[in-house]
């Protein structure tokens, strides 16, 4: 009997064990994958770790663009249990207008769309409150947002990004692949309360590269400030400045006006402020192009700076066209005078000696008619017709800077050739790419060093004796060339009375540290010529550049200022005469000569608002006066005195009679 019961008990235990074993097999073998997948779905989450877009720095490491992580709230309106109630809840948590949010959600729901941004860039507290609600229809998503902390500074260089943080202009677009990086994926193990336990990298990402530009933030600011002031002062349409190291092609500043704030979305599709006038807009250079003509002449002909050029008394007839020079009284002059006084007929005479083939060759060698390779999208290559397409007067036109269009950065590249001894260096904007210093393209010999030196000397003559006196620097030698080209109206088929005033120059003369090219587009009247409008901008920018770069001075501290009337007269003499009356678009038929006597032009008419302010007053002689008397006299004359010591004034700095500029103080040493 007992054995039978034990047998039953044993049988029961066996069946029980068998059932457990069966379930084990079922769990571990038959449905193993299903349960593993279920467990993984609950416990493991594949999360995206976004790669922050790389920052853009200036040459000294100051950030110009950077990305920040933000959190945004999205919902799927198709899955909301109660649109009205849920809208109210979200609006309350996110401090939104309830009715407006409800209408948005309702509209999305009606259009059967399953995604809606509720609010972007929420605060950490709002995110915490939403997560505490633990509602599965609310999604808090991490995002990255691009910031440009300096606002409009270097906007045309930086460009911008779209809503997906993809570059759409400037360096942001040109180096988008490097800046963007690649997001990594991680497998995150969580518990029942969604707390993270472990995390394993599923796929390796790549952080966005840090791009260091050649731009100097301070110099860029000065360039933008000066060009903006000049454009506004001369009622110009636009303007641009390029500051470049002539030896390695590093662009230290590239400013274009009007400008924009890349933090703000574009106002319209054709937002004029977003156009980069330094690289993307070409124009007829005018007289600045005579530098190329004369360089070619020095290389290919027997002409030298002292060679005599016949300016034909200011009138030249070529084929059926009569050309009037802007310097009617000039007859036979030296070649350097042709450049200094910007004689169009002299330039044409020189160009005719160079010849078509050589001229075309040197124009190409200087980099015109082709892109410079600066890493900015939308660069204009300019316009240089192929040699077979040149007309009968094309050589003459190009010799004086017409029938050709160039960009400001191309002019900077050409000026660098003269400044660095004859080598063409390509302008570059990227100094370091993710810590790796980028190497410049190998330079190409364009002109002989002797030619470059001669050109520098002649260009110094422009600043000292010619049309570019407004570009004269204090403490530094400088060379340059002015240009004032009339703008051609394609609708009316004639040249207008608006100008492209430009100046390209470098400083110091013997070992140039910077090349600065200034262009003002759409200036009016004589005050808008290159010597009057662009040269002062060169002066301000070059002075600041030389100070920032700590370039030693190569001239005594103070130079006697040139009479204002003489300087003004020289400033207007660089006009590249265009066709003012004819229907023909040829500049060589100009009857409207601007070569008027200097006395006929009032100095006020060409005074530049951007020019440095005149000296305030002369320093009085304080020697022998008491402190009280010194202070009284200084107060009466509106001067600032910095007294030192007590008793009678013995020494003063600046000395009596010196010119006191705005902001300067007079130090007076007193002793008994």
């Amino acid at each position, binding site marked *: 009997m007992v054995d039978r019961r034990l047998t039953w008990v044993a049988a029961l235990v066996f069946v029980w064990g068998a059932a457990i074993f069966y379930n084990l097999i079922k769990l571990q073998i038959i449905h193993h994958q299903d349960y593993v997948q279920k467990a993984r779905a609950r416990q493991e989450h594949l999360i995206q770790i976004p790669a922050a877009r790389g920052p853009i720095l200036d040459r000294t490491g*100051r950030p110009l663009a950077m*990305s920040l992580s933000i959190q945004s709230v999205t919902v799927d309106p198709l899955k909301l249990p109660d649109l009205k109630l849920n809208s109210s809840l979200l609006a309350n948590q996110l401090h939104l207008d309830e009715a407006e949010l409800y209408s948005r959600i309702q509209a999305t729901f009606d259009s059967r769309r399953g995604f809606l941004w509720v609010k972007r860039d929420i605060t950490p507290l709002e995110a915490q409150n939403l997560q505490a609600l633990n509602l599965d229809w609310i999604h808090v998503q991490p995002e990255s947002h691009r910031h440009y902390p300096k606002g409009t500074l270097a906007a045309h260089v930086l460009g911008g990004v779209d809503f997906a943080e993809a570059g759409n202009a400037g360096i942001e677009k040109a180096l988008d692949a490097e800046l963007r990086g690649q997001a990594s994926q991680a497998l995150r193990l969580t518990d029942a309360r969604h707390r*993270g*336990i*472990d*995390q394993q990298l599923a796929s390796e990402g790549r952080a966005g590269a840090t791009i260091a530009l050649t731009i100097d933030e301070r110099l860029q*600011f000065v360039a933008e400030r000066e060009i903006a002031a000049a454009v506004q002062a001369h009622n110009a349409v636009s303007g641009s400045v390029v500051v470049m190291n002539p030896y390695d092609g590093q662009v230290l500043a590239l400013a274009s006006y009007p400008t924009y704030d890349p933090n703000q979305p574009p106002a319209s599709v054709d937002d004029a402020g977003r156009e980069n006038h330094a690289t993307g807009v070409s124009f007829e250079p005018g007289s600045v192009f005579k530098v190329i003509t004369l360089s070619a002449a020095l290389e290919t002909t027997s002409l030298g700076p002292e060679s005599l050029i016949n300016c034909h008394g200011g009138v030249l007839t070529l084929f059926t066209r009569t050309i009037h020079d802007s310097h009617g009284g000039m007859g036979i002059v030296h070649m350097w005078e042709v450049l200094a006084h910007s004689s169009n007929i002299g330039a044409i005479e020189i160009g005719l000696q160079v010849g078509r083939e050589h001229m075309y060759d040197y124009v190409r060698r200087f980099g015109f008619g082709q892109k410079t390779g600066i890493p900015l999208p939308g660069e204009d290559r300019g316009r240089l017709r192929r040699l077979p397409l040149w007309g009968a007067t094309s050589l003459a036109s190009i010799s004086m800077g017409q029938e050709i269009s160039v960009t400001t950065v191309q002019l900077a590249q050409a000026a660098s050739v003269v400044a660095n001894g004859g080598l063409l260096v390509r302008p570059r904007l990227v100094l370091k790419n993710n810590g790796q210093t980028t190497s410049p393209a190998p330079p190409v010999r364009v002109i002989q060093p002797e030619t470059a030196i001669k050109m520098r000397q002649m260009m110094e003559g422009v600043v000292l004796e010619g049309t570019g006196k407004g570009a004269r620097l*204090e403490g530094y030698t400088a060379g340059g060339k002015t240009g004032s080209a009339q703008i051609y109206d394609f609708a009316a088929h004639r040249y207008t009375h608006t100008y492209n005033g430009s100046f390209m120059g470098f400083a110091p003369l013997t070992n140039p540290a910077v090349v600065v090219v200034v262009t003002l587009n759409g200036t009016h009247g004589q005050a808008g010529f290159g010597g009057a409008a662009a040269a002062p901008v060169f002066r301000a920018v070059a002075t600041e550049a030389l100070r920032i770069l*700590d370039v030693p001075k190569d001239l005594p501290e103070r130079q006697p200022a040139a009479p204002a009337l003489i300087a003004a007269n020289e400033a207007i003499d660089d006009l590249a005469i265009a066709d003012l009356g004819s229907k023909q678009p040829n500049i060589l038929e100009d009857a409207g000569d601007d070569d008027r006597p200097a006395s006929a032009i009032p100095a006020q008419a060409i005074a530049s608002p951007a020019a440095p302010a005149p000296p305030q007053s002369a320093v009085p002689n304080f020697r022998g006066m008491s402190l009280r008397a010194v202070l009284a006299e200084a107060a009466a004359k509106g001067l600032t005195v910095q007294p030192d010591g007590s008793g009678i004034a013995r020494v003063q700095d600046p000395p009596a009679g010196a010119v006191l500029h705005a*902001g300067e103080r007079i130090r007076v040493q007193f002793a008994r």
Partner: protein
Amino acid sequence: MATVPQFFRRTALAAGAEAPVVRTESARIQRDPFLLRTLPQEDVFFYCKKIDNSRLVREADPESRGKCWSAIGAACVALALLTGVLAPGAASTLAGYRIEVLRAEAHRLADERRALELQQAELLSPQRLEKLAQRQNLVTPLSSQVVHLDNQSDSAVAMVKK
């Protein structure tokens, strides 16, 4: 079918126990009706019996003692093994929690640092600095007021250090 009492009775009989006493009706009649019935447990007397076990000596049982120690040892080994197997997993889980918290903290601090860098960059923007300078009546130094120190020489550095 046998009941539980019958089952025990049968097993007792099978073990050779005595037959149970069967009470008869006559025994109850013979009792004096005027006598009180005995109280329950009236015939039980308790007294303290002193038992001296001091002379008893436990018989040595090395076999059971060995089994006992073996059992204790096995339990300890099992406990150690269990701890050795489970402890790393538990520690790993706890460390995972800690690492996740620290990772989130690191991300938060990195974001905070970037936000501060952005704020610093905004505060140091040239536009803002120029406005501040204008407010303080500061002007850009003239070229004649700028003195360039010789970078190659240590004299300037030495002068500053002094």
